[in-house]
């Protein structure tokens, strides 16, 4: 069961990621990224992270991707121009990506004998009990201060986003006023 679900949604993940690379229109890339993120939420569910699965759907597939699609529509982003790109990307970049993948795979599979490790009993203490209780105990007791600081971070990010994207609104009325005079 685990194997079948993993294969299906890992396939969705990979197909979405490859489709993201192949599509030329940004809106298609955004939609395939939603497929990747929703499939990742199912994989989190398989790994016993129910809270993260729901948070993934709400935060990533919901909020972040709505923001992306809004920006794509707002800027009226058209078809991507296919240029050859820099020579450095072709000569150094792609071998570097292959080397990066090899290093990652080697480290992940050989460190501490992880390649032969199998999924354990899961995080839950008792069968049928969610690890949500454990997670909330750690998050809201031990890590309460970082959790609250995160809200300040998000507030500052919102203010920063508004400040950056804000149009200098005073210019147009000023010029109109000047024209009227």
């Amino acid at each position, binding site marked *: 069961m685990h194997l079948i679900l993993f294969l299906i949604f890992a396939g969705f993940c990979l197909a979405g990621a490859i489709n993201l690379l192949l599509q030329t229109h940004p809106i298609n890339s955004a939609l395939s990224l939603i497929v990747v993120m929703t499939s990742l939420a199912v994989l989190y569910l398989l790994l016993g992270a129910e809270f993260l699965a729901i948070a993934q759907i709400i*935060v990533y597939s919901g909020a972040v991707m709505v*923001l992306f699609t809004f920006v794509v529509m707002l*800027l009226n982003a058209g078809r991507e121009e296919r240029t050859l790109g820099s020579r450095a990307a072709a000569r150094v970049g792609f071998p570097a990506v292959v080397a990066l993948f090899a290093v990652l795979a080697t480290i992940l599979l050989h460190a501490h004998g992880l390649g032969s490790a199998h999924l354990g009993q*899961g995080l839950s203490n008792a069968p049928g009990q969610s690890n949500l209780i454990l997670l909330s105990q750690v998050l809201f007791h031990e890590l309460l201060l970082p959790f609250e600081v995160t809200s300040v971070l998000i507030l500052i990010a919102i203010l920063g986003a508004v400040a950056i994207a804000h149009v200098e609104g005073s210019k147009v009325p000023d010029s109109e006023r000047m024209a009227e005079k």
Partner: protein
Amino acid sequence: MSFLQHDFPISWYLLLSAILFSLGVVGFLIKRNLITVFMSIELMLNAVNLSFVTFAYQWHEVRGQIFVFFVMMVAAAEAAVGLAIIIAVFRARSTLAVDRIDLMKL
């Protein structure tokens, strides 16, 4: 969810994570649209989150999941600020092609 727990190698999850991360790097290199480049960065973040959740499951440690939660929050803030910067760049240069945004290029 006891029916889900069989002998299942976690290396498959880790390999999937590594593949997704590498695809994100490839997208960062080959995409020529500012928004799509940003999407590739989000893909890399998600790949790392997957390996965090896998290790949290393997070591029976809930802190890995909490770290992913904080990564999600920071990524949401980063997406808001990044997209605002993209809008500002589009206003200034009227283009989203990364080849045309070359003011700081040598």
